[in-house]
């Protein structure tokens, strides 16, 4: 029997989409029965109380969580979020309900053996409720009590070779797209770089020393499956410099209807026969493609690598061989001065171990931001406040037209004194010799 009546939540059990309500209910039952004889370290009925408190929020249209005191594990300033409910008498099982962020493996591949170990740990020492995954990328373990935090951390590090992720004013857990593991569009090994950066910057990830949060996201190509260009203070987006590789026979395969356009992504509707002129040549944003006499040609110098033609004809077109990544900086959600998309900082860098050309840029950016950034100022806001030119200066990157969408709209250039011949300390007496008062 359910501990609390949940008539509103119960209405979310119907319908085809997987119901989290049904899932939490089934887990509440597993805990109540406890056929596995788990030695539960937090209240057995914690899941009943989760449903109870959520039902109350559904009724009130208001949350019942408050931000608690600072809790965490010794020596780390992130990875744990303190949480307490504001109706502890009604729902004692969730009176203390802290979250742990567990640093997910790059690419989010798992073995069941690992997941089971994590499930056992979390069932015994926490609510057994998770997020797979949180929006930054971590595995989120939702709801445990303070006394369990060190125990969980000890078990994670000693038995599972697994560390916590980031939270607070530090490097947040980096995340990446599936990349070369299973995607033919990937221009570099996103998993390798993601794992490297995560390990390289463990101190920055665990011990908040930044003005605010800082995110790395890694996309293998301009399709941007992990939204790096919109979401990361520093985005690493795969690209290439040479020519798109064309398999003319396969192009004919598409034209002849042998292969489905866009890898079959549109097969739910009859869009008519594939029309290469209209669907590829005509939609190329730079107009750099031609299809004449049964042959596709691309003026690669004019191509901006938007991926459209490759997405439409993956069997016929392939990314080039001179591969690397572009670095964008400063993306963030709208709060406060409006949303910012990442701004191009490094047009191209090859991706080679030990990744020094990349870490140099990262560290120069951090040095500047830690020196100049105000409390709670994201990198993008600092760039806006001090100017993109300053960003180039601190990273020692030469300005190129690729850095801008278009040149400035005003002539109010802040010249530096050494850029102007003779400097700024002219001689007024000399001037007056030729110009009366």
């Amino acid at each position, binding site marked *: 029997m359910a501990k609390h009546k949940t008539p*509103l939540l*119960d209405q*979310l*059990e119907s*319908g*085809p*989409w*997987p119901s*989290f*309500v049904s*899932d939490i*209910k089934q887990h509440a039952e*597993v805990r109540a029965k406890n056929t596995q004889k788990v*030695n539960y370290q937090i209240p057995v009925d914690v*899941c009943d109380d*989760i449903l109870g408190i*959520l039902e109350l*929020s*559904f009724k009130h*249209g*208001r*949350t019942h*969580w*408050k*931000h608690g005191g600072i809790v965490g594990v*010794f*020596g780390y300033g992130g990875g744990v979020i303190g*949480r307490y409910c504001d109706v502890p008498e009604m729902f004692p099982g969730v009176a203390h309900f802290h979250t742990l962020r567990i640093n997910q493996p*790059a690419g*989010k591949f*798992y*073995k*069941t053996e690992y*997941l089971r170990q994590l*499930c056992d740990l*979390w*069932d015994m020492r926490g609510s*057994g*409720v998770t997020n797979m995954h949180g*929006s930054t*990328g971590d595995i989120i373990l939702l709801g445990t009590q303070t006394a369990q935090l060190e125990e*969980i951390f000890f078990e994670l590090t000693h038995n599972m070779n697994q*560390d916590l992720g980031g939270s607070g004013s530090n490097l947040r857990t980096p*995340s990446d797209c599936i990349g070369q593991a299973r995607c033919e569009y990937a221009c570099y090994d996103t998993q390798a770089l993601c*794992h490297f950066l995560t390990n390289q910057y463990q*101190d920055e990830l665990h011990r908040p020393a930044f003005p605010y949060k800082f995110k790395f996201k890694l996309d293998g190509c301009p399709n941007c*499956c992990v*939204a790096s260009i*919109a*979401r990361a203070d520093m985005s690493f987006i795969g690209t290439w410099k040479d020519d798109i590789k064309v398999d003319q026979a396969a192009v004919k395969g598409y034209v002849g209807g042998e*292969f*489905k356009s866009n890898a079959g*992504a*549109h097969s*739910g*509707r009859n869009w008519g026969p594939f029309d290469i002129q209209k669907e590829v040549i005509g939609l190329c944003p730079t107009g750099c493609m031609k299809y004449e006499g049964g042959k596709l040609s691309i003026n690669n110098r004019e191509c901006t690598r938007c991926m459209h033609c490759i997405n439409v004809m993956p069997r016929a077109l392939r990314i080039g061989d001179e591969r690397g990544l572009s670095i964008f900086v400063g993306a963030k*959600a709208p*709060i*406060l001065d409006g*949303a910012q998309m990442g701004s191009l900082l490094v047009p191209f860098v090859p991706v080679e171990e030990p990744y020094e050309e990349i870490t140099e840029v990262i560290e120069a950016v951090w040095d500047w931001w830690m020196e100049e950034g105000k409390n709670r100022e994201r990198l993008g806001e600092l760039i806006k406040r001090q100017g993109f030119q300053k960003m180039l200066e601190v990273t020692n990157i030469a300005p190129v037209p690729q850095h801008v969408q278009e040149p400035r709209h005003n002539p109010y250039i802040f010249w530096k004194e050494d850029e102007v011949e003779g400097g700024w300390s002219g001689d007024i007496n000399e001037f007056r010799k030729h110009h009366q008062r």
Partner: protein
Amino acid sequence: MAFVSSGYDPKEPMKDRITDIGPRDYNEFYPPVIAKNKGKWLYHEILEPGVLVHVAESGDEVYTVRVGGARLMSVTHIREICEIADKHCGGHLRFTTRNNIEFMVDSKDKVAALKKDLESRKFAGGSFKFPVGGTGAGITNIVHTQGWIHCHTPATDASGPVKAAMDVLFDDFKTMRMPAHVRVSLACCLNMCGAVHCSDIAILGYHRKPPLLDHEYLDKLCEIPLAIAACPTAAIKPAKVEFGGKTLNSVAVNNERCMYCGNCYTMCPSMPLSDTEGDGIVLMVGGKVSNRISKPEFSKVVVAFIPNEAPRWGKTTDTIKRIVEAYAADAKKYERVGEWAERIGWERFFDKCELEFTHHLIDDFRDPAYYTWRHTTQFKF
């Protein structure tokens, strides 16, 4: 419920302490066919909704069955996922950025049994545990934030509206009839920890009332300077207030400047701002993150406010469905929602989606606002 020690000694926290080891090495987790062919994939194809094949230079193939899931999931559910992966996939699986689960097998003859198994499993309440779909020009899983299950500043729930919306959009999770893929996201307050601001359709929780001030407790429970510093618009000032015959240190909020972000509440529990009538949903559309054809775009606010209607958020899901249908009927192949709206003009977008345009939808927030007003004689009647 006797306390069980992990081995950690609270008297000596540094004894045998292991720190800064990072995540597990991804190489440990690759299925063999992935490990072998990494970086050597030739092409892929979506064979049917939710089923993909990737073909490698070696001639190897990997078949992926993608299923949707609530990102809020219990260990009982994860154990069931493991059971399936053990049975069909040699103990391997992966999660996607959009909270889908991918089961991979190395030959075509293993797909049907896997798919059948996945689709046969239902929760006691009747919903699918593992609906197959979420590929190509359809509507995949909604990425979202915490909501009323765990956060202190939400203006709406997350898992609830997501479940309600996905129920309404379910057919398009299972088919690929859209002009292009449609990415739906939800964030339950304007902090947008899920960064939904570049989605085809973004569901955003929004407060409309400044924080309440619990003067009696404010100085006792909060560090007033921290609360003041937390406010992004500098709306909070220190103030002395008379309470119960005493003069107390507290704060005053300039309501006109407040953007209802709840950052003060994060610092100070005596400044709560949830409110049943004040809170609700904003709908934003037309954003994207991909660089395909056109550049990445921010989503635009097209509905300023819809009240929270737990448990099924009917008006929100109806409006989303209407936008999706108008888009599906009118957009050209490959055109994303935002590209479609740009082509037909936003004035037409409001017509076709039968949405009301109100003054709330004209940007008045700082500099970027100007760039959104009309600066040309080209517009449609």
